[in-house]
């Protein structure tokens, strides 16, 4: 589903040095596969996700989704790609303050194929229910806790039932139990609905749920080793 080939992205610094954010990264995420990507801060995870989201052009290499390159797409096609093929979950928890949780989750549908609000709501309700937000659906999004908001973002990302889900720290604001629920949900989603899931995370629980785990260090991808890469994971203790 997702093919990342020899991706290179370097950033010049004011001091004349070059930061090698990605230095020939290649990885695949097949339909129905759940991939977790570990990496320390500044390892290039965000750069990789930004390129996959067609928001940044790499210096070299290619990103293909369903065999089609998403590099250098015209603006209209980029919008369609993000609406229909990509589910993107960011850690910024951006919501429209005046809208309810369910309306925020419906926004992506309304921007795309669904023109009626009621229809959009009908389609996101099961997702909210599954993520434990049914009781909060009619609340203002800004009244939700950070953890609830994170799950709301996940519901919004999956509202169009995209074949590819890319998530940046999807359990960053959740307690251990809730993180487990969300990771289980992602696994279930990938296996039952065939969604390709790529998650950048520090959550050590992800290794138990992911089909494949990679590490990203110094712009290069490698296989995850629990002992060697212990520094990349953070145990979350939240009440």
């Amino acid at each position, binding site marked *: 589903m997702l093919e990342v080939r020899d991706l290179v992205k370097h950033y010049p610094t004011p001091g004349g040095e070059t930061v090698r954010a990605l230095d020939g990264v290649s990885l695949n995420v097949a339909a129905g596969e759940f991939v977790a990507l570990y990496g320390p801060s500044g390892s290039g995870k965000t750069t990789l996700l930004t390129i996959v989201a067609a*928001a940044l052009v790499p210096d070299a290499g290619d990103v293909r989704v369903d065999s089609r390159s998403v590099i250098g797409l015209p603006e209209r096609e980029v919008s369609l790609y*993000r609406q229909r093929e990509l589910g*993107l979950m*960011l850690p*910024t928890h951006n919501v429209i303050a005046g809208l309810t949780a369910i309306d925020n989750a419906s926004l992506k549908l309304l*921007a795309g194929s669904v023109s009626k609000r*009621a229809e959009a709501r009908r389609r996101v309700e099961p997702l909210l229910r599954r993520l434990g937000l049914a009781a909060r659906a009619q609340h203002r999004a800004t009244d939700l806790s950070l953890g609830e908001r994170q799950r709301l973002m996940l519901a919004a990302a999956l509202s169009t039932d995209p074949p590819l889900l890319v998530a940046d720290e999807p359990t960053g604001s959740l307690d251990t139990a809730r993180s487990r629920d969300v990771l289980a949900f992602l696994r279930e989603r990938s296996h039952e609905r065939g969604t390709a899931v790529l998650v950048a995370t520090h959550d050590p629980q992800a290794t138990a749920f992911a089909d494949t785990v990679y590490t990203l260090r110094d712009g290069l991808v490698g296989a995850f080793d629990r002992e060697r890469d212990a520094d990349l994971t953070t145990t979350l203790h939240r009440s």
Partner: protein
Amino acid sequence: MSLRNLWWFYRERLRARRVQELFALVGIAVGVALLFAVQTANQSLSASASQLTEGLTGSAQLQLKARDPRGFPGTLLREVEAIDGVDAAAPVLEFPANAVNGQREQSVTVLAADPRLARMGGRLVRDYTDDRFSDLEAVVLPSGVAQSLDVGFGGWVTLQAAGRAERVPVATVAGQELLGAVAESPLLITSLPYAQKITGLRGRVTRIYVTADPSRISEVTGALEKIAGDQIDVRGADFDAAVFANLAMPNDNSTSLFAGISALVGFLFAFNAMLVMARERRRTIAEMRLAGYRSRTVVQVMLFDAVVLGTAASVLGVVLGAALSRFAFQPDPGYLAIAFPVGAGRVIEPLTVALAFGCGLLAAVAAAMVPLIGAYRSVGPMDAIRDDALDRGGRNAQRSFWAPAAGAAVCLAATTAVLVLAPEAALAGMATLIAAMLLILRPALGIVVASLNQIRSRVRSVVPTIAVGELMSASTRSLAIVAIAAIAVFGTTAIEGARGDLQRGLDPNARELADTTDLWVSARGASNLLATTPFDAEGVARRVESAPGVSSVSLYRGSFLDTGDRRMLVIAPPRDSRTPIPPTQLLHGDLAQATARVRAGGWAVASEAIVREQGWKLGEPFRLESPHPLTLRLAGISTNFGWSPGALVINADDYRAGWGSDAVSAVQVALAPSAAAAVAQRAVVMALGDSAPFQVQTAAQREQSFRTTTRAGLARLQQIAALLIGAAALAVAAATAAMIWQRRRQLADHKLSNGISAKSLWKALLLECTVLLGVGATVGAAFGLYGQQLLDRALGTVTGFPVEHTIGIPAALASLVLVTVITLLIAAVPGWLAARVPAAAAFDQ
């Protein structure tokens, strides 16, 4: 925290929010500029008049002043000099004239003096202490007049005065370095003997200024009163400044009222411009609390921010205001120039600078305190990492619908009380009205947004969902934009509406004053608009009567007469005048009876303010202190005919008795029924001779002259309204642009997470702005109409002018549409740029 650290802290944060800070700076500067420009224009005329009086009188404390424009015998000077305690006495002759150079002409007041006045030290003539000045047979022109006539040293001008015309050489041109603001005044200075020669007023003077031993002022005053008898006035040397203040008072009061409103509006612009930045400041506060800073340090940082921004914006505002007052907002003496040689000189008072600067700073500091208070009340340190929490203050407050609505009702009731019971306290009424308007904005926006929320599901687009969602948060910044739009439309609607009503009230007066005959023949010059310049009628009337189409001529007399501190206008139409009393201007008394009595003689109609001040009563006799005092009876009470100090109507024969002179100030011409006015007008001009120092006007032309002059007098109000709308558009655009710019990361997120196109985001921004501006402008227009009623009542009370009461719905709609459309057009650009934000910006932390 030390000042150095505060500065460093400010500089670092400024880097991250340069554009937003710039928009706030523009908003505050616009408010300060508005306040400064209006205040400067308002004070310049009074300052110019004061400088003129001081420049003339020097060390003099007293004066003998003629009641008759033709003056009194100069031989009285010797008697004055002989008074014990008099150190010096100086004669002056002043008279209105028309200076002509080719096609250019300018109404001036000729000031004729001799070295004795120069020795009193007045700035205007202090360079002429040499005795040879008396032999000068030329004129000195202030630079403003020289420029207007396009003449300089060595040139010649024709001086038309007292029905005579004389070519006079220009001795020199005096500029600002010598005359100060008076350099812009319509004056002409010459020697006394030369002036007496060219006007035919040989041996006559209109004033004698006196410098006396300060310990013997009352003794000298008594002796002067004996010399003056009952035909000349004894006054303080600075009497004219008091008369000018009285004359300018209605204008000053009305302009001050409007300037006060502008100041209020300017302050609110600045205040709201800062509120647009409330979100950023809340974030800073939350971040600082999260980092463990003490409350005192947070307050220091916020205050430092506000002081730096307020200072920079106020400096920019004062500079902008100075430019505005120089190039777009010049002082215009309007009707005041008819009775005083005041010019358009610009005088900037230190107090004006301080006031404008202080207001800008105060607005910045006050507005900086709002997020501080709000943040400590409702935003916790952890909200530093939740963007939307920074709007929480606004959202909570939105839930309260009834509290602001009730507050608005109380303020409206207070405004209504002012309107009905004390219209002269209009500024206080305006403040309560604006408070009511600001309080009602949140409920009004809530109702509109709730309605839009109901209908958005029927629209097949994501655009209304995004826009309504943002609107439903009703954040402080959104309300600040609504408030700026409301204040802008409110100000323009109220001011422009009231100006129109005042103009409409004055128009019938202009028609009735002019329409008493078919043609008017009077001395040339714009300052003779009210026919107050005397001339010898004998030859003129005979020549006019001989012109084809003329049926009959009659003699009109009139002038100014100082009563107390009032320069009263005396209107003395001939007995056979069609309507000696303008019918719509009579307030008390029977029109037919009053007309018959004035025609019969021994009766007068006087303006209400004079009647009230002098204690005159209808039907009862009173004494008029004319050059030869008259005893008259009061036939009716009128408006002030648009002449603010007030007017008195008597017939021309009574005037001749009271002034002891056959001189007239206009010849009224009745035409034969078959004669066309324009044809007869040309015939009269030919009969008088092309170069004669007279103007011949049809009734319609004279009416137009009146209208033009009253419009010039009201131009300030129109300028204020225009400036307000310009400032409003800028302030609203800056606030809107700031709001849009703050959204860029959120827009990037919409693009990235939801795949929403830049075009859709742009449309959503425009829709949101349209709603915010529309609600603000509509509420502003509605309250502006109420403000117009308040101003109408206040103007009628403080100016004494006739004011027509209307509801200026078209003007309100025009300013509503103008502010909304202009601002949207301006905001569309930053909206488009913000919508084009790279999607990758969503990843920025």
